[in-house]
């Protein structure tokens, strides 16, 4: 973002960056920066809070009044990512003949479909469509038990894209299952990896691939780096 700000400014457009990494903004030094120590992925701070979002924009646009730059200002509010998984119902075990994650994903399909119908858009589909999520979880289950990841039939063979689709399917289904205020940053990630059978299966498959000597990029980006 900071690099692009220099490019756009050179094209004649006045720019303001809402930065999320203080050190990077300091190094690249775009013309005007409002540093926002908010959860990554939420540059305006709080979903569903227009008042707070307007406060961020107001402070950002105020930087346009500076006669010269670079200008670097910090938003006074710090918002930490949640350290607790969101409370979200999961389907009961139904078919004991399949791995738990496969059963679980099948049980979430109606919630996912309701979410898609309501929002009209989905980010699932990078490697697999929603109907195939239980199938790829079955493949990951096999990998976690020691199968060679190259032989289980991963569609397209891109583990990052497959795991993206699984996690996104769960998050979009969860939109229909969580009540109350918007979950904080990372609360849905924590729910997926710490509470669901699918998250546990992804983590177990990733660990098995790492331990089997699979190349780093193939297993590492299946989950957030800190996991």
């Amino acid at each position, binding site marked *: 973002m900071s690099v692009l700000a220099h490019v756009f400014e050179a094209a004649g457009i006045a720019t303001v960056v809402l930065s999320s*990494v203080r050190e990077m903004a300091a190094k690249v030094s775009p013309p005007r920066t409002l540093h926002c120590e908010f959860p990554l992925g939420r540059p305006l701070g709080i979903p569903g809070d227009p008042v707070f979002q307007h406060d961020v924009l107001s402070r950002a646009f105020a930087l346009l009044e500076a006669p010269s730059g670079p200008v670097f200002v910090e938003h006074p509010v710090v918002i930490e990512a949640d350290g607790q998984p969101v409370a979200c119902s999961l389907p009961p075990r139904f078919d004991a003949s399949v791995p738990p994650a496969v059963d679980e994903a099948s049980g979430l399909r109606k919630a996912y479909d309701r979410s898609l119908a309501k929002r009209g858009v989905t980010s699932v589909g990078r490697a697999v469509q929603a109907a195939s999520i239980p199938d790829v979880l079955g493949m990951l289950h096999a990998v976690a038990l020691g199968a060679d990841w190259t032989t289980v039939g991963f569609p397209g063979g891109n583990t990052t894209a497959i795991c993206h689709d699984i996690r996104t399917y769960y998050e979009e289904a969860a939109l229909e299952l969580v009540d109350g205020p918007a979950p904080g940053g990372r609360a849905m990630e924590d729910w997926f990896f710490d509470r669901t059978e699918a998250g546990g299966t992804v983590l177990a498959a990733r660990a098995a691939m790492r331990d089997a000597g699979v190349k780093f990029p193939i297993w590492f980006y299946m989950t957030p780096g800190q996991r």
Partner: protein
Amino acid sequence: MNGDQAMRTHAALLPAPQFPDPAWVTPKPLTQSTVAIVTSAALHAPDDARFAAGDTGYRLLDQDSRNLAMGHWSPNFDHMGFKLDLNVVYPIDRLEELALRGVIGAVAPRHVSFAGNQPDDVSTIRLDTGPAAAAELRRDGVDVAIFTPV
């Protein structure tokens, strides 16, 4: 160390290009300015081409579009906030409210989306796709751009 702290620590150590003679635009009054959003969230309309891993291109987002997908490849940040309220990444409704109140002159008819996970040398967005996107906004009469990272 939580995920955000880990990512910020990692990102702080990434190589950063230098701009020894940076441009500076003295903007006209905000009340007369047309404002656009530039985001690195890899947002795209459902019928746009999806972002590939390491995609150095951009997508133009129509002002009226709200059914946007997030096509970013990184698993290392929260995607849920956007799904709950796109304005937390792409504050298009907030800009329209500011235009109605006369705080800004107008909302741009098109906005720009890049993917934040660029190759380390960022040469393509710096020399090719970045200038091309800026030229598109200039053609739309954009005076001010607010940049929203993820």
